[in-house]
């Protein structure tokens, strides 16, 4: 894949740039925020934006910009970790299912069905009652929901590839199933996985917001965009900006990710590209 080619797609470039901007904003919070987010000062709560607090302060007198930076990081981390779980377990599962077929495939697909049958909120509720609410809980719940998604993508991609002759050629060259999956199938379904990854990342960020909103996600003193929404929702009529800012941040991040995902699909999917030329 030629990177310059990728950037020929303006929407992809825009989506990636915006995603990157938010990711950097979040990462920056690791080393610097305008104010520490644990710094509570009731005396300066509900300040309107000014030079010292660019986005104002919240109900505990914390700096909104700092909170949004840290919250963005949490949202990304939760989404990305959940994608990592989905990819880490789902992709090998899908590859194994496709390569070995038969009963192995059947078992893998039943496991995947099983994971599908538990909506992430239910998993989150179950886990929250077991180990208590928290970001980890959200990661696991969303991650479990991601597993069958990636398993299916990997399995479908692998099945489509396995009828191609270069897989036969590799078998003739004495490569085992695992080696074929690793050397020949994985690199060729990587684009599918990346595209699905951006989609699941944006869904994960939304799901984290939902879980935090019902109190099952991130817990104070840590913060996430969803938690900020939860904290601010009852104040909406009095201090609307406290919920509009994190809400807007979620919408922008998700839109950026989706645009990037769509762009990636267009740029990476050879079938679409061929259609464009033919």
């Amino acid at each position, binding site marked *: 894949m030629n990177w310059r080619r990728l950037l020929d797609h303006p929407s992809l470039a825009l989506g990636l740039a915006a995603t990157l901007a938010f990711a950097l904003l979040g990462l920056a919070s690791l080393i610097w925020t305008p104010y520490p987010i644990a710094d509570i000062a009731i005396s300066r709560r509900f300040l309107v934006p000014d030079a010292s607090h660019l986005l104002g302060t919240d109900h505990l007198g914390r700096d909104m910009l700092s909170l949004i930076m840290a919250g963005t990081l949490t949202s990304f981390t939760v989404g990305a970790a959940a994608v990592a779980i989905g990819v880490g377990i789902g992709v090998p599962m899908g590859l194994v299912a496709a390569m070995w077929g038969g009963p192995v495939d059947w078992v893998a697909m*039943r496991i995947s*069905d*099983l994971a*599908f*049958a*538990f*909506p*992430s*909120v*239910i998993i989150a*509720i*179950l886990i*929250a*009652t*077991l180990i208590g609410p928290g970001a980890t809980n959200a990661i696991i719940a969303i991650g479990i929901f991601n597993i069958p998604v990636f398993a299916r993508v990997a399995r479908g991609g692998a099945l489509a590839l396995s009828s191609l002759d270069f897989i036969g050629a590799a078998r003739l060259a004495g490569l085992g199933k695992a080696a074929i999956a690793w050397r020949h199938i994985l690199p060729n379904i990587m684009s599918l996985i990346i595209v699905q990854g951006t989609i699941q990342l*944006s869904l994960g960020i*939304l*799901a984290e*917001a*939902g879980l935090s*909103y*019902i109190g099952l996600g991130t817990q104070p003193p840590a913060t996430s965009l*969803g938690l900020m*929404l939860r904290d601010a*929702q009852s104040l*909406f009529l009095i201090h609307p900006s406290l*919920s509009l800012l994190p*809400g807007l941040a*979620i*919408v*922008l*991040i*998700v*839109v950026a990710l*989706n*645009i990037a995902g769509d762009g990636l699909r267009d740029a990476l999917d050879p079938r679409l590209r061929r*259609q464009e030329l033919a």
Partner: protein
Amino acid sequence: MLYLLRRLAGFALTLLIAALVIFVLLDLLPGDPARFILGINASADALAALRLQMGLDIPAPARFGNWVWSMLQGDFGVSHTQRAPVAKLIAERMAVTLPLSVFAMAISMAVGLPLGILAARHRGKPLDTALMVMAQGGVAVPNFWFGMLLTLLFAVTLRWLPPGGFTPWYEDGWLALRGLVLPSLALALPQAAILARVMRTALVDVAGQDFIRTARAKGMTYGEAIWRHGVRNALLPVLTILGLQFAYLIAGTIIVENVFYLPGLGRLIFTAISERDLVLVRSATMVLVLAVSATMLVVDLTYALVDPRLRERRA
């Protein structure tokens, strides 16, 4: 027929394993349901009495067996905290959750599919771009957030619809229906946006296929060909998404029920968990899992019904 049997066997197995997972998870729950019911100052003998009453002294495998066996007979046990048959409690909540999911599904289809078709027919034109930008926004707005905005506009400001709550169907069907409008909309928006995108993609895919060219060669315009031959074929991939969406919808109802204080299944589970009502949580979760799995099953079977190729290969 064989396909149906095989699919049903897989379905039953999935449910059984799901039941086992739920049971194991919930049996490990930290916390004593008896203490929760009786509260802070309960005496030890009162606690022991309640534990006995709740059957917490029977060994776990036997409890699992009893649970599954009685569920098969339609007996879901009695709730510890609510002192009522679980089957009745779940049935009451289903009267809200089921119509809510179905309405949301119907709205999302009624909005999403035509918009997706419209966008695909005007692919690359401003209308397409505008619709897809809207869809991007729709996907990105958290539904609880959207629900709150809807309430502020339609319930608080305009007072067209109730801000939440639910009148039982038997009391006043019209009021019940009105109560479900805003929550269904809140649930449906992101789903409609997703559907519009999926429908558009599927249709654009189909539009590139040879039989659309054949239809045009027969004398149809592009639009006619898309409408008569494209849409039905494009609905096949959409069907899969619809099945998945139901899972998302159910997850969504749990959150949206909170925003609109609807007495749905999600809130039942939610309160039951915080009250450590093992029997209720177990069975209600099982019902949700059943609902999702059954939808998947129905989608699979519909697929076979719609697509003659599958019907044959799998029959």
